[in-house]
C-alpha cells in the first residue's frame, strides 16, 4: 500500500487545477490553491523520492490489471529526481509570478494558475508512466496546457510564436503516435517493460528501427535538437517572462527524458542511431551557441543557449555508458535550475529597465549589484566554471567522452563551453557592466525596486542558492545521478519491478 505515495505528486496538481476551475472568477483563491497545491505536491514528490532511493523502484498498476495489460505507473531514481526538481520550480514560479511585471493580472485571472497546474500534472505523469501510449497522453496534457500558457493574453508576438509552437508540436506528437502504432503492430504491447523484453527477443524484425527513428525524430523536435530546433527561439521568448521561464526550464528536458527512457530501456542498441545522436549532439551544441552569439534580445540569447546545452545531454546519451548517462542526468538537473534562473534574472532586468534588448538596458552593476551577482553565479554555472554546478556535469561528460575516445565530441563540448562564456558576456557587458549614465531614466530606488518586485527577487535568490548548493555540495546529486543511470542500464531490475510486483 505504500506504493500509493506515488499518487500524491501525480494527482495533487490535478486536484488543485480542478479547485481553480471552480474558483474561476476569484484570482485570490486560485493563488492560495496554487500555492498549497504545489507545496503538497513538492512534499509528496520528496516522500516518493525518499522511498525510491531507499527501497528501489516503486510501481503500481492502474485498475488492478495484470502488468503488461493495464497501465503501469513506475517511479525509479531518474524519474523521481526530475519530479522533485520540477515541483521545486513549481513552488518557486508562484513567487516569481506574483509581481505583475512577470505575468500580468489579466493573465492571472484568465486561467494562468489552472493551466500551470495542468502542465505540472502532465509533466509528472510523463515522468512516472511506464506505458508508452500513456506517455503520449501525458505529453499531450503537458503540451495543450503549455499551448494555453504560451498564447495567454493574445498579444500579437505571442500568437505568432504560438502558431509555430502548436503546429510543430502537433506534428511531433503525431509522429510519436506513428511510432507507437508500429511498435504495437510488431510486439502487441505498449508496456515499456514488456516491450523491452519482446523487442530484445530473437527474430524481431528490423521494422523496430523504423519505429525507433519515429521516436527519435518526434522527441528531437520536442527536445529542440539539431536540425529540428528552429521553433524554440521563435516561440519561447514570446510569452511573459514568468511563463517563458517555466516553459523554457522544463519542457525540452521532458523531451530528453522520453528519448533516454525509450532509447535505453525499450529499444535494442543500434550503432547507426548512436552515430546519429553523436552527430546531433555536436551540431546542436554548435548551432545553438552560434545562434546565441548572433542575437540581441536577452530572451533569444537564452533560448539559443537552451538549444546549445541540449547538446550536452544528448552527448551523454550518445556515449551511452552508465557514467556518461549519469553526467546527462546531472546536467539535466543543473540545466533546469540554471536556465530557469537566467530567465528569472532577465525578467528582473526587464522590471528595472523596461527592455530585454541588450543595447537598451545597462548600468545594472552600478545600480543593483546583487542582481549582477545573481546573474554572474548562474552564468558562470552555465559556462561550467569550477566549482559551480555546470562544471561537475561537464566534467562527468567530458571524462567519459575521453575514456571512450570521442575526442571530437569532447573538443566541441569544451569549445561550446568557451563560446557560452562569450554568449553570456554579451549579456553581462552591456546590461550589467557598462555605464549608461544619462540616457536611461531610472525612477525607482533600490529599496523600492525590491519591494515592488519582491516575489521575483526572492525566487531568483532561492534558485541561486540551490545552484550554489548543487555546485558546492554536488555529491548527493551526483550519487543519485549515478544510481539513476545504473538503474537505467539494469533493465532486468526495471522489468522485474514492473512485471513481477
Amino acid at each position, binding site marked *: *500500500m505504500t506504493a*500509493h505515495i506515488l*499518487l500524491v505528486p501525480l494527482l495533487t496538481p*490535478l486536484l488543485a487545477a*480542478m479547485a481553480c476551475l*471552480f474558483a474561476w472568477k476569484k484570482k485570490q483563491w486560485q493563488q492560495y490553491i496554487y500555492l498549497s497545491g504545489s507545496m503538497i505536491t513538492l512534499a509528496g514528490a520528496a516522500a516518493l523520492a525518499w522511498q525510491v532511493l531507499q527501497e528501489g523502484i516503486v510501481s503500481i498498476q492502474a485498475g488492478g490489471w495484470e502488468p503488461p495489460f493495464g497501465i503501469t505507473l513506475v517511479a525509479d531514481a531518474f524519474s523521481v529526481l526530475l519530479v522533485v526538481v520540477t515541483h521545486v520550480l513549481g513552488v518557486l514560479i508562484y513567487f516569481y509570478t506574483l509581481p505583475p511585471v512577470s505575468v500580468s493580472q489579466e493573465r492571472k485571472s484568465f486561467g494562468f494558475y489552472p493551466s500551470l497546474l495542468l502542465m505540472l500534472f502532465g509533466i509528472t505523469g510523463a515522468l512516472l508512466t511506464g506505458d508508452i501510449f500513456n506517455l503520449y497522453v501525458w505529453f499531450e496534457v503537458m503540451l495543450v496546457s503549455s499551448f494555453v500558457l504560451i498564447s495567454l493574453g493574445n498579444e500579437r508576438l505571442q500568437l505568432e510564436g504560438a502558431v509555430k509552437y502548436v503546429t510543430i508540436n502537433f506534428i511531433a506528437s503525431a509522429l510519436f503516435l506513428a511510432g507507437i502504432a508500429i511498435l504495437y503492430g510488431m510486439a502487441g504491447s505498449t508496456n515499456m517493460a514488456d516491450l523491452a523484453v519482446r523487442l530484445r527477443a530473437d527474430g524481431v524484425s528490423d521494422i523496430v528501427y523504423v519505429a525507433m527513428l519515429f521516436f527519435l525524430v518526434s522527441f528531437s523536435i520536442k527536445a529542440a535538437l539539431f536540425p529540428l530546433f528552429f521553433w524554440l527561439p521563435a516561440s519561447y521568448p514570446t510569452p511573459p517572462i514568468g511563463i517563458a521561464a517555466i516553459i523554457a526550464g522544463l519542457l525540452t528536458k521532458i523531451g530528453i527524458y522520453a528519448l533516454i527512457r525509450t532509447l535505453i530501456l525499450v529499444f535494442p542498441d543500434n550503432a547507426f542511431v548512436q552515430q546519429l545522436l553523436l552527430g546531433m549532439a555536436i551540431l546542436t551544441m554548435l548551432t545553438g551557441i552560434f545562434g546565441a552569439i548572433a542575437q540581441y534580445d536577452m530572451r533569444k540569447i537564452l533560448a539559443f543557449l537552451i538549444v546549445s546545452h541540449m547538446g550536452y545531454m544528448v552527448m551523454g546519451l550518445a556515449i551511452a555508458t552508465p557514467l556518461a548517462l549519469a553526467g546527462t542526468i546531472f546536467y539535466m538537473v543543473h540545466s533546469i535550475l540554471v536556465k530557469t534562473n537566467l530567465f528569472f534574472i532577465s525578467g528582473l532586468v526587464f522590471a528595472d529597465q523596461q527592455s530585454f534588448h541588450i543595447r537598451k538596458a545597462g548600468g545594472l552593476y552600478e545600480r543593483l549589484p546583487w542582481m549582477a551577482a545573481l546573474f554572474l553565479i548562474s552564468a558562470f554555472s552555465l559556462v561550467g566554471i569550477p566549482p559551480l554546478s555546470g562544471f561537475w556535469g561537464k566534467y562527468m561528460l567530458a571524462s567519459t567522452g575521453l575514456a571512450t575516445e570521442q575526442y571530437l565530441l569532447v573538443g566541441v563540448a569544451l569549445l561550446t563551453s568557451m563560446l557560452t562564456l562569450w554568449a553570456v558576456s554579451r549579456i553581462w557587458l552591456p546590461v550589467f557592466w557598462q555605464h549608461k549614465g544619462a540616457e536611461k531614466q531610472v525612477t525607482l530606488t533600490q529599496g523600492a525596486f525590491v519591494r515592488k518586485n519582491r516575489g521575483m527577487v526572492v525566487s531568483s535568490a532561492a534558485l541561486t542558492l540551490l545552484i550554489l548548493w548543487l555546485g558546492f555540495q554536488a555529491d548527493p546529486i551526483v550519487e543519485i545521478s549515478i544510481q539513476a543511470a545504473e538503474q537505467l542500464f539494469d533493465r532486468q531490475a526495471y522489468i522485474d519491478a514492473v512485471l513481477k510486483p
Partner: protein
Amino acid sequence: MRTLIYVTAIRIILPMFLLFSLYLFFRGHDHPGGGFIAALVASVGFIFHMLAFGIETTKVTYNVNTFALMGSGLAAALLSALIPVWVGKNFMEALWLPIELPVIGKLGTPILFDLGVYLLVVGMVLKTAFSLFED
C-alpha cells in the same frame, strides 16, 4: 440562420439531442457510445440553440458555467479513481454496486468516470463555441 422553422424546430430538437446523448451515455459500457460521444451530441444540441437564438439567449436560458462543468468533470473522474484506493483496492480499479437498476443497468465507478468525461467535454466544447461565437 434565424428562420422561423429553424427556431421552432430547435425547441423540440434540443430535448431530443439531450435524450439521445443520455441514451448513448448509458449504452456506452458494452456497446458503441460512451461519455465522449454523448457529450459531443449534447453540445451539438446547445450549439444549434446558439445558432438559432444567439449566444446571449443561450447563456441566459441555460446559465451554464463552463468552468464549473469542467471542474466537476475532473472531480467525478478523480473520485472514480480514488474511491477504490479508499476501500483498499487498486488505483482506478472498477467497483460496481450490487444492485441493478432497470433501463440504466449497473452503477459503478466506470460510470462515474464516464460522467466525468461527459461533463469535461461538454464544458470544453461549449467554452470553445462561446469564445468562437463571441468574436
